[in-house]
């Protein structure tokens, strides 16, 4: 897919970051990255590579130490436009328990809209729409502690989508979920991708990464790779060296090749395998 000539939603220009009080230890080092409208960008990297920090720079939760972050042309370091920035870039975090504020799902969906001063009728309308679309209508009166992990994360996603942001940044949204919750969230992500939403997904789960339009691999605060998933996963040795696993389907292909059988190089996904095997027989 050609994305280069599309609108840039988030623009990182020469961004460096070090947390205050850490002796200027560089967490991110001179990152140049554009997030284009409608693409799904996956940020990969071993622990401590700066993925979460990069995500937090994208909606002004952190301001870069060097360089600048532009969201739809607005500088995130500018306090006066910060609330505009947060309206344009929504954020979902890792821990489902620690990002729900309200006493019920309905109030939760309203929380972001309340902060941004939506009129009550508009909130009602959007809550109805979004809860119907994401099958949350039966949960509207539930308190958060009665929801499963996957449901909590879907509520978190829905409450961010309610303010209709231009882009959605998700910081390891599945890493604290059980397999069922993970499937729930991943299918939600796929729906988002199909609906043409701009998504930035931070993850270390390779099966999630394979669905990306573009992958950025961060190693020690530097963007070590930027490109399509297939190209990323063809660098098996390099990925292993920096401590990342390759997707199970690709690993299977690699091991089969190791046994001396001939299978194509580009089997990265279960779907690829299905296609390949069906075509053979």
């Amino acid at each position, binding site marked *: 897919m050609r994305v280069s000539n599309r609108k840039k939603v988030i623009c990182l220009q020469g961004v460096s970051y070090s947390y205050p009080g850490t002796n200027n230890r560089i967490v991110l080092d001179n990152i140049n990255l554009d997030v284009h409208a409608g693409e799904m960008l996956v940020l990969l990297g071993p622990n401590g590579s700066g993925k979460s920090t990069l995500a937090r720079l994208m909606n002004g939760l952190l301001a870069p130490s060097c360089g600048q972050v532009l969201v739809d042309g607005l500088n995130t370091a500018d306090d006066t436009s910060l609330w505009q920035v947060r309206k344009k870039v929504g954020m979902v975090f890792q821990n489902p328990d620690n*990002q729900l504020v309200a006493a019920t799902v309905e109030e939760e969906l309203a929380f972001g809209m309340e902060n*941004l*001063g939506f009129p009550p009728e508009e909130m009602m309308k959007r809550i109805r729409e979004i809860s119907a679309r994401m099958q949350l209508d039966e949960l509207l009166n539930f*308190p958060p502690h009665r929801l499963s992990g996957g449901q909590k994360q879907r509520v978190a996603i829905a409450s961010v989508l309610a303010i209709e942001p231009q882009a959605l940044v998700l910081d390891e949204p599945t890493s604290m979920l059980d397999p069922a919750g993970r499937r729930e969230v991943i299918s939600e992500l796929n729906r988002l991708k199909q609906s043409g939403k701009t998504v930035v997904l931070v993850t270390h789960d390779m099966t999630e990464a394979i669905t990306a339009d573009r992958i950025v691999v961060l190693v020690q605060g530097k963007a070590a790779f930027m490109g399509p998933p297939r190209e990323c996963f063809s660098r098996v040795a390099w990925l292993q060296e920096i401590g990342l696993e390759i997707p199970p389907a690709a690993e299977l292909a690699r091991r089969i090749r190791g046994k001396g059988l001939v299978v194509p190089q580009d089997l990265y996904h279960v779907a690829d395998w299905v296609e390949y095997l069906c075509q053979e027989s």
Partner: protein
Amino acid sequence: MSLFSNITLGQYYPGASLLHRMDPRAKILALPLVMIMVLLADGTAGFIMSGIPVLLALLLAGIPPGTYWRGLKPLWAILLIGLAIQSLTYPGEKLWQWGMLSVSREGFILGMKLSYRLSLLILSTMLLTMTTTPMNLTAALEKLLQPLKKFGVPAHELAMMMTIALRFVPTLLEEAEAVMKAQQARGGSVSTGNLNQRLRASVALLVPLLAGSIRRADELAMAMEARGYRGDTGRTRLKQFKYRPVDIIVLTVLIALTIVVAADRWA
């Protein structure tokens, strides 16, 4: 499923009675009126008048009497002790004597009055919390305190703190349970041993819980900010309250009754 998964917060009793449907602001305003009335009441007429609204509300709330009974249970001891102290210590005409103890007529009447007032106060407060969800209570409180913001009362912040506290009680209970199980698995226990051992064990429970809630607070603050939270600047509310005729009527009647009771006392 967790031990605490079925916990219901507060004493809210779901229903659709007149009391449930009243504007929570009106209910909150009615409470001090009832309290003033009950405390001002003196003499038979006053006591009857101040009792009527509470009794009427108890009947209208559509909550089974057993629920009120259970709510009052822990307070029976206080009511009885109050009655005993009043009747045993107040000087006056002796009704009954046993060795050094004597019950005076005046003391007994005073004690009965005290118990009557206390139970009315407790019942009216219970009615408020049983017919109003904690969520509506905090939202209504925020609305009512709004005018006091000019004098520096942090109305919105108070309401937000209450909301978050209520929201996290079940989460923290779950976490407490997890810590307790983890310690039991390693041979620690909060429920056995002498007092000293139990105290030590509960420190081992509280420290991780406290550390955990600080971490939670940090993450929650970040998540709230990411969703554009900045106090109540430019903030609107999903929940809109509207006074209906019934709310106005109830409040007017209560004000009138309070005046009558006050007049009865000082007349």
